[in-house]
Every structure is written in C-alpha cells, then in structure tokens.
C-alpha cells in the first residue's frame, strides 16, 4: 500500500511540522522573527543524541533533555535581547544559529563536519503523528487562552498591548520558549529517526525555509502554517531532478517578496481552516450567487 519511501517522507514532514509550528508561534502570533531556528533544532538533536548514545539513557529521556536544552538556550538568548527595541533579537537568532552550526562542525567529540552516527533509533510514523496531534491541540488551546491572546496583542500593536497592562517582555520570552522547545523536539526526533546527525542538516538555509513556510502559510494562522508545511516539506523529495533545488529556492525567494508586497498576510491570512469556516464560505458563495441573479437575469 504505502511503501517505506513515502512513509519516510511522511515521518520527516511530521517532524519538520513541529519546528514550523514553533516558528509559527514566534513569528506568526507574536511578531518576532527568528533567522536561526535550525540552530535550536541542532541543539535538541545533538543533546538528545549524546544523552542516548553516550549516556545510555532511554529515548524518551533523550527527547526531553533535547527539548529542555533548546528551550534553555532560547531563553538565555532571549532574555537580554528581547528587552531592547530594534533588531537585536533578530541578529541574535541569526548569530546563534550560525555559531551553533560552526561549533558543531569543529567539535570532534560529536564527529565534526562528518556528523554523529548510530544515535539510537526508535521513531516511527505513528509516534510522530501522535506528537503532532497533541502539539497542535495544545497550541490551539494556548492561542485561545489569555496568554495566547496577549501574544497576538503584542504582534498587533506593542504600545497598545503595553497600555493594556500586558508584560511585553514576559510574553515575548514565553513565545520564544515554546518556539525553541518545539524546534528542539523536532531536532531530537529527526536525529533519532535518521539515526545520524550532521551540522549541514541545520544550516541557515533550513532556518530560512522554516520562516518561509510560516510566511507563505499566513501570519497568525496555525492551519495555514500546517498546510504550507505539509506541501513544502515533501516538495524537495518530489523535485529530485538536476538543478530543481536551486530553482526551488529562487521561486521561494520570489514568492516571499511577492507575498509580502501584495498579500502580506499569506495564504490563510488571520483565518483558521475549520469545518465552520468552510460552511460559512459556501453559504456566502450561495448568497452572492443569489444576489447576482437579479442583476444578470434579463
């Protein structure tokens, strides 16, 4: 039925989806941009791999440790920079992403540029699917809660949010923490699924891709990000011919510029994809159809 090749692609898509959701919370809902989220994936991946390979810990402990490590580093880098106005946070994420990759490339204990092999297997598609569903459920609830609404208020207008008594710094840090935790979890899952880790898996192109998926899906739409991840993550596998990879990035770049200029809210805008929404859409369509009839009917 489904051969192992497609199952593999589906598993990877599910894993990357977690990282995209992390960026979605940070960028889509809080309005902060990270250009180094692949770095946090790398932290999660390598910490978990080291814990399982050298520490002989069970896989679950590795995943938790990886997630915790990425969260801690994210909060450590967010604490000084999120207090400042200006692009400090952006440059900090860019710097940490590059720094982590370069340190991993030069650190012989984790294999340097060659990477780390035999890090412990045990990730299957059902498990990834389960984690995805749980995470999406939790994020949807978070966004409906007071805390989620505070994050959205910060994205819309920081000054107004501050005037409403929202602690801007704390909620930005919260979004950063959630986002880095998800990136770390995704990295840890990826390592244990692939059974090897390489610094180039987490380069700046990957960070940019995560951001692009969120932008294309729509600022402030969880389902938009999910849809765009489900389409864009498997795309390179489908396009494995010649210079298709470079063309893919050219088109991504062009699309991002066009989207930002012409439809800055992305594919879904601020709307969520839901059964209710679809029904409303069709009823609107019907109403419009009826409205037009008297005009056009001669």
């Amino acid at each position, binding site marked *: 039925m489904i051969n192992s090749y497609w199952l593999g692609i589906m598993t990877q898509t599910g894993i990357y989806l977690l990282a995209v959701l992390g960026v979605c919370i940070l960028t889509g809902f809080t309005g902060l941009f990270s250009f180094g989220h692949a770095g946090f994936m790398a932290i999660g991946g390598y910490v978990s791999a080291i814990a399982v390979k050298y520490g002989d810990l069970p896989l679950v402990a590795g995943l938790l440790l990886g997630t915790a490590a990425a969260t801690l580093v994210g909060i450590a880098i967010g604490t000084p920079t999120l207090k400042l106005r200006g692009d400090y946070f952006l*440059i900090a994420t860019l710097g940490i992403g590059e720094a982590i990759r370069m340190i991993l490339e030069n650190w012989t204990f984790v294999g340097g540029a060659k990477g780390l092999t035999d890090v412990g297997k045990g990730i299957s598609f059902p498990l990834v699917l389960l984690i995805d569903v749980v995470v999406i459920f939790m994020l949807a609830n978070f966004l409906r809660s007071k805390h989620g609404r505070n994050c959205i208020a910060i994205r819309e207008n920081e000054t107004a949010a501050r005037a409403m008594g929202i602690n801007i710094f704390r909620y930005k840090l919260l979004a950063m923490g959630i986002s880095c935790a998800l990136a770390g979890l995704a990295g840890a899952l990826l390592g244990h699924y692939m059974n090897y880790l390489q610094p180039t898996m987490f380069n700046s192109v990957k960070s940019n891709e995560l951001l692009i998926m969120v932008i294309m899906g729509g600022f402030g739409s969880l389902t938009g990000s999910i849809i765009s991840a489900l389409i864009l993550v498997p795309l390179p596998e489908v396009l494995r011919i010649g210079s298709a990879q470079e063309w893919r990035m050219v088109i991504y770049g062009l699309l991002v510029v066009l989207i930002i200029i012409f439809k800055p809210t992305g594919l879904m805008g601020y709307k969520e994809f839901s059964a209710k929404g679809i029904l409303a859409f069709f009823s609107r369509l019907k109403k419009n159809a009826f409205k037009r009839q008297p005009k056009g009917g001669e």
Partner: protein
Amino acid sequence: MFIQQLINGLAIGSVYALMTVGYSLIYSLMSFTNFAHGVVVTVCAYVGYFVLTFFITNIPVGILVALVSGVAVSVLIELSTYRPLLLRNAKRLYLCIAGLGLSIMVENLIIIILSGRFKSYPSEVLSLGNLTVGNATIGIIDLVILLVSVVALVCLEVYIRTSKDGLAIRGASFSLDHASIMGINTDGLMIKVFAIAGALAGIAGFFCGIKYTAYPKLGSSLTNKAFISAVLGGLGSLPGAIIGSFILGILEVLVSGYISSTLRDVFSFSLLVVILLVKPTGLLGKSSEDKA
C-alpha cells in the same frame, strides 16, 4: 609577523567597515535590517571579476565599475522591493523578510547561471607584489584596500557633516516622520541613502572578490560579519560601526593567524552571542530602549 597580521586585519576591517556603515546608515534612518545588502556585494564581486578578467586588468577601473554597479543595484532594490512596502507604511519587519526573500532568490539565481564555483580574480591583480618594511612583508593590495576604504569613509563622513543632504540624513535618523514634516523629501532621501550604501557595498564586494574570490554566498557571509560589527560598535551608530568593523577585522586575523583559521568564524559568531548577552548595546550604542 605581527605588523603583517595587523595590516591584513586593518584591510579586512576596512572592508567590513564599508559594509557596516552602509547597513547602519539604512538602519539608523528606517530602523530595519537590510538583508538585501549582501546581494549588492555579491553582484559587484562578480561584476569586478568579469571586468578584470575579460575587459581590462586595471584596479582603479574595477573599483569605479563596481561602485557604479553597486549604486545601480542598490537603488533598483529600493525601488522594486522596499518602495511599495514603504508607500503602504508596512511594518518594518516585512521589509526584513522581503530583503531576505530577495537575497535567497539572487543567491540561487547566481548558482544556476554562473555555477556555485569560486571565481578567482586574474593573477595580475592578486600578485601586485609585496613591500618589505623592516622584517615584515606587507601585501601592496592590502594597503590599496585600506587606503581606498579609508578615503571612501572619510568622504562619507565629510558629506554627512557638511552637506545639506547630510544634515537631512542626520535629522531623519532621529525621526523620519519629523524630518518629513520639516519639509525634507524623505522618499528622495531614502534613494540617496541606498545609493550611498550601494556604492560602499560595491567597493566592498570588489575588494572581497580580490581577497576571497567571488562566490554566491559571499554577500550573505559578509553581511553576517557586518551585523556582528554593527552590534559590536552599537547598532545604528556610524562611528560605532567603523570602530566595531576594525576591531572585528583585527581580532579575526589574529585568531586565524595565531590559533586556527577554521576557528575564525566560530570566534566571530561566538563573540556576537557574548556581546548580546553581556552588553547588547555595544561599545557606542545609544540606549535603544527609547528609539522605537
């Protein structure tokens, strides 16, 4: 040995300074990070390579062509990508993303058209000879780079301090809206600022082509260095940008000379992270709490 390294570091630092000053100028006016700055550098490095290889092997001509094409590319980027967003008064972060998209696009287009290989400038340019002072051997090309960069930076400083446009730029860096109310044509000013930044980035691209060869990722790797220098000196401050660039250039050369050349970039990015953790406003940074 040390003198030699120092001159090399100053040359690299001066190239960083050209980049960082252009970046800081745009940042101080419009308070957004211009990710497309690297595009100008890459394109000009390739322009310099083609001019020197196929037309005329002459460094002054190369610098001039790179400068002109830098201005052209930078203004084109402003008009095509940033202008529609600025007219709509879009969020500043949208400008960042548009710049990022543009740089991803151009980088990969160059890989497709010219292949990802490193393109080395003709050997006549590279082997200009050396100068022996005492027991130190100094590459003449390093001195040329240092001299031209310093002249360019001094020209910019004089322009900003004395001319009417300079006054407008200084005023607009406090508040673009207020400058506009005072009768300054801010749209025109932005084009001028992008042209200046493009000219500096064009020269930087040409010199980088000479020192490191031309390759598609040249611009983005150099832009990262410019960000580090800008944060080191204090984001949005022009003197800070120059000081930060020279410090970074010299430190990088010392690290690669005395410790290990592979650790150079690790060092630079770790330095950035450390600065952001310890003193995020940098050496000369204004308190950036109030500059919204």
